[in-house]
Structures are given as structure tokens and as C-alpha cells.
């Protein structure tokens, strides 16, 4: 497949507007602004573009939810809060071609009738925030952002808003709260942001990669885009591959490419020639899959049928040396740290599950621990919490127990009885109980 989103990788000064224009950039804006907003939405919808942030919701449908007759202002938000462990593709797009994102933002804003757009970027991405601001300034100087763009009568201002360290702000309603200057606590839905979002106004939140696809769809047409990938998972996808492979990194591939091909051909196989033990297909909140699922295709449907999720395309590869009790401990440390604390099953459940897994790993497991973990996961997931964070830490628990439960049982079977059964295993949090004991 020809590179599309990463076509500028390796070219000189690829972040400059001159390079972007030389590669054909900013042609789609004129075309889109000459189209009715409804026609732009229809084009994106028929291209079959689905959100690249993890949920896979059809982008054109999301845009269509914005009420056309609302007297309120409308907002577009570009979600660059990329924080799901194993995911680093949006950072790559920003490093390679930030103008592609800016062009997508302008077209999407025109489609939904927004005159202001915010790019919410995680606080750690300081360099990337500067890259985006430089691109905004260049685009404004070239008349691609600002008042009456290309004489169309459409005006747009674009601002970068930095987060300050909170995974949950990648959830769209927590992100909105964060821009409003509040703690990033997710909101109950409905109402959905398309109706009541930022500052109480209709708002669309789209991922960086999603928006980067938009100029290509407008310029080359829905049919061209839809011809890439599988029947229901269309277009190119960026896969962030990390862990035990020889060539980790970001790769652009058609959706549906089998994981075997990604791991063994694209990424050069397992480091040190070892055997594959397990992989997480879409970022650490997606269920882990054992090595025998490696022939599954990397499209939304195939991964779901195999019992996991494509998520953000953050593929984490683990070889046969990995202790799966350790791996779940590590994943739960992340989620216990990042729970916003709003809902009891998530706030308490994430800490509790981590406590139990750490106890098992330290050789103090109890026979009832497996059932306790299953119960915590059951009561924190599937609609028991305001946002999907409950599922985000429950799915790893369920899948690790399903595929690698024997490792947990073995650790429990050889456990030493606690010297005093009332001795707490706390402290839990990284930062306080962290002694490099890995």
C-alpha cells in the first residue's frame, strides 16, 4: 500500500507548509469549502471512516449528530491526548506532518459549522504542542485558518490546549471538562457532546489520525478510501508496535493485515528469535490474546471475533519470558493510578484488583483470589461506571485469567501463608511503594 498518512516520513522539513503543499496538501480545503457541509459529511460517511482513537465509531455519523438549527456556537476538538499504553501513532503524525491534521480540522469544522477548534494535547507532549502551534501559525499566515478562508465566508480559529497529566482526559467528556478548566471527570451520557459539549455547545471530538484521513477522502473521494482495508473496516491504519519485536515503531497498513504479518514481517519477528507468548492488539485496555491468535486480521470485526478489540492499534508484543502475573500487575498499576475516582466500582475496584494481583505475585496469593478478581471485574464493567474506564481495567483482568489463569493458579498453589493474615499488602501506588522490584 502506498503511504498516505505517513507519506512525508523521511522527507526534508516535512513539517513545513511548503513541504506539505509540495506533496499536494491544502488542495482539499478549497474543494471542501466549495461543497455544502452536508455533502462533506455524506462523503466522509460513504468513505466508511471510523474513529481511530479506539472506539471505531463512524466519523460521518458522529458529525451528523450536530444539530443544524442550533443557535449556539459549535466546536470541533482534535483529541491529541494519546495516553493509552502502547499507543504512539498520533505523536508520529504530529512529528511527520502536522499540517495534515490542521487541514482535517478545517474541513471537519466546516462540515459541522464550527468557527473555533481546540487541539487538546497531553501535557507531556511539549515539543509536539510547539510543532502544532508552528503549523497553526503557518497555516494562518497562508490564509488556511482565520477570517473568510479562501473567500468562502467560512472563518475558523484554532488553538492548542495542553493537558497536564491525566490519562482520563482522553475520554471525550473528561477532555471537555479539562478544557473548561476543571478536574477531568467524565460526564454522564446522554446528552452526548454533539448536542451538549464544550461550554454547553454542540461539539465533535475526533482523534488526530481520524482527522488526518479527512483531507485524503475529500481530495481522492470516498470510493478510493473505501477500497482500502476490509468491507467494514476501511482505509489505512497506523499501528504502533512495541515490546519484544525486532523493529518496533509506527507502521501504516491496510486494516485487516494479519497480526502474524505485522509481527513477523513488518516488525522483523520476535527479539532474540524467541517465541511469541501473547499480544495486546489495541492498547493495554484491550483483552490480551495468546500466541495462537496471531493469524487474526487487524480489522475491527476480526479482532472482536477473536475476543479482543482493535482499539487504537497499539500492538504490545510479549515473548515467552514474560510472567503474566507480572504483566497484569503492571497494567493494573497504570489503571489504579489513573482512575479519576468518581465512580466507586472503578476507584475502589482498580486499587483492590491491583492489591490482589500484587499479593499473588509476591507469593502470598490465596485460593479465593481468582474469584475475587473476577467479581471485581464483573462489577466495574459493562455500564456500572460513568465512562468506559471500568471496562478498561476489567478487560485485562478477565482476559489474563481466561488465557493465562494457570500462571495465577500456580503462583497461588505455591504461595506461603501470610505471617499475619491481617498484614496489609499496601501501599499500592507507584510513587510510594516503588522499589524497582520488577
Amino acid at each position, binding site marked *: 500500500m502506498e503511504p498516505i498518512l505517513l507519506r512525508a516520513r523521511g522527507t526534508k522539513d516535512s513539517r513545513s507548509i511548503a513541504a506539505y503543499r509540495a506533496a499536494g496538501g491544502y488542495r482539499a480545503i478549497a474543494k471542501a469549502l466549495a461543497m455544502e457541509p452536508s455533502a462533506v459529511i455524506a462523503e466522509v460517511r460513504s468513505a466508511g471512516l471510523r474513529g481511530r482513537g479506539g472506539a471505531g465509531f463512524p466519523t460521518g455519523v458522529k458529525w451528523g449528530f450536530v444539530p443544524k438549527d442550533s443557535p449556539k456556537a459549535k466546536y470541533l476538538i482534535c483529541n491529541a491526548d494519546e495516553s493509552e*499504553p502502547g*499507543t*504512539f501513532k498520533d505523536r508520529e503524525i504530529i512529528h511527520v506532518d502536522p499540517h495534515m491534521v490542521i487541514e482535517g480540522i478545517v474541513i471537519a469544522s466546516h462540515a459541522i459549522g464550527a468557527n473555533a477548534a481546540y487541539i487538546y494535547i497531553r501535557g507531556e507532549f511539549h515539543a509536539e504542542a510547539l510543532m502544532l502551534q508552528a503549523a497553526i501559525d503557518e497555516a494562518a499566515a497562508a490564509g488556511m485558518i482565520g477570517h473568510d478562508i479562501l473567500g468562502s465566508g467560512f472563518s475558523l480559529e484554532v488553538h492548542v490546549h495542553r493537558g497536564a497529566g*491525566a*490519562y482520563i482526559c482522553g475520554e471525550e467528556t473528561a477532555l471537555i471538562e479539562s478544557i473548561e478548566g476543571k478536574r*477531568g471527570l467524565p460526564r454522564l451520557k446522554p446528552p452526548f457532546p454533539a448536542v451538549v459539549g464544550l461550554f454547553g455547545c454542540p461539539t465533535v471530538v475526533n482523534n488526530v489520525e481520524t482527522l488526518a484521513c479527512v483531507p485524503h477522502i475529500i481530495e481522492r473521494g470516498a470510493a478510493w478510501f473505501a477500497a482500502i482495508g476490509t468491507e467494514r473496516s476501511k482505509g489505512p491504519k497506523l499501528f504502533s508496535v512495541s515490546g519484544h519485536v525486532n523493529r518496533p515503531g509506527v507502521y501504516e497498513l491496510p486494516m485487516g493485515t494479519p497480526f502474524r504479518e505485522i509481527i513477523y514481517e513488518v516488525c522483523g519477528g520476535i527479539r532474540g528469535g524467541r517465541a511469541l507468548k501473547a499480544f495486546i492488539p489495541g492498547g493495554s485496555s484491550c483483552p490480551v490474546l495468546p500466541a495462537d491468535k496471531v493469524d487474526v486480521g487487524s480489522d475491527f470485526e476480526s479482532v472482536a471475533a477473536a475476543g479482543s478489540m482493535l482499539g487504537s492499534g497499539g500492538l504490545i508484543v510479549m515473548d515467552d519470558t514474560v510472567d503474566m502475573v507480572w504483566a497484569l500487575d503492571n497494567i493494573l498499576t*497504570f489503571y489504579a493510578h489513573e482512575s479519576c475516582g468518581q465512580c466507586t466500582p472503578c476507584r475502589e475496584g482498580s486499587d483492590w484488583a491491583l492489591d490482589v494481583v500484587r499479593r499473588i505475585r509476591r507469593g502470598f496469593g490465596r485460593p479465593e483470589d481468582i474469584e475475587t478478581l473476577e467479581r471485581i471485574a464483573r462489577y466495574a464493567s459493562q455500564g456500572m461506571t460513568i465512562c468506559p474506564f471500568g471496562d478498561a481495567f476489567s478487560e485485562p483482568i478477565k482476559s489474563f485469567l481466561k488465557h493465562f489463569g494457570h500462571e495465577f493458579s500456580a503462583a497461588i498453589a505455591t504461595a506461603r501463608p501470610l505471617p499475619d493474615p491481617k498484614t496489609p499488602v499496601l501501599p499500592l501506588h507507584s510513587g510510594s511503594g516503588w522499589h524497582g522490584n*520488577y
Partner: protein
Amino acid sequence: MAGAPTAPVNAAPPEDVAEVRFDAALEAEIGRILSRYPTTQAALLPVLWCCQERWGWISPGITRAVARRLGLSPASVEGVLTFYTMYHREPPGRYALQVCTTLSCQLCGAADLAGHLQRRLGIGFGETTADGRFTLIDVQCLGACGEGPVIQINNDYYTALTAQRLDELLDRLE
């Protein structure tokens, strides 16, 4: 890794920021921030960032000054401040070494690197060396998993590190 080494942060001593006033330059920046949003409160995160850039951390006195300037209660500013992990509420060392401890970096040796750092500096996570040079912080996923292990020093990312490369790097930071 190439290029100029990370610039140090010189955090203001607590007695200098027990109470603060915003000078003309900071006021001008706050004015530019406010123009980007329809509400005053939306300026809170960016204004806190400006203050941290100026003083290196957010003292209780700075918290009160931000609250006064934006018409918010000190308690609500404190609430926001403590929700996010990147605002320092104590003066950090000149270099904040933020070590990613999440899965992909761990699979690539982050624990060895963390142990090496603790031994070399003689401090644990959350602590600052006696000379005020380094603060060691364990952080969650930094979003650069393909280049693990990753350490963020102040604003800069350093990737694919080994103990030897890290030693060379730290020797250059004063």
C-alpha cells in the same frame, strides 16, 4: 539525544513565592490566553502552565494569586491543581527525571534503568538529590512506547536508553 542538552529549571525558593504578583509580561500572556476562550475558568490550565514556567512550581501563594486573577475560589484551583500530575507542588530539582514505568518500557528494560538511577543518585522515587540537581519521578506511559525505555527530562524526551547512555547524558546536565 543529539543537540543541546536539556535546559535546567531553576525553581523559586518557597520564601520567594509565599505571595506573588503578576508582572506586566505575565498579565499580557494571561490576556492572550483569555482571548482564546469564552469563559474565564477555561484559562486555568494554561495560566497554571505559565506560572510553572515562570517559577518552576505552583506554591500555595501562586495558587491563591491565580484564583484571585481568574475569579475562582482557591479551593477549586487547588482541586484542579491536584487532579493533574504534571504541576509540581514542591520545588523540583533542576532536572526532573521522569521514568516511564508502564508495560512496553518495562518489556524493554525500564526496571534496570530505574534501579541504576536510584543507585547512582542515592535517592528513591519522589525524592530530590541533596545538591538540588535531580528529582526522580516514576511516571505512567509517556506515549513513546516504540522507543522504550523512555525518560522525560524536564520537557525533553530521551528514548531507547541504556545505563551507559543515561550516564553520559546525566554527566552533561549541571
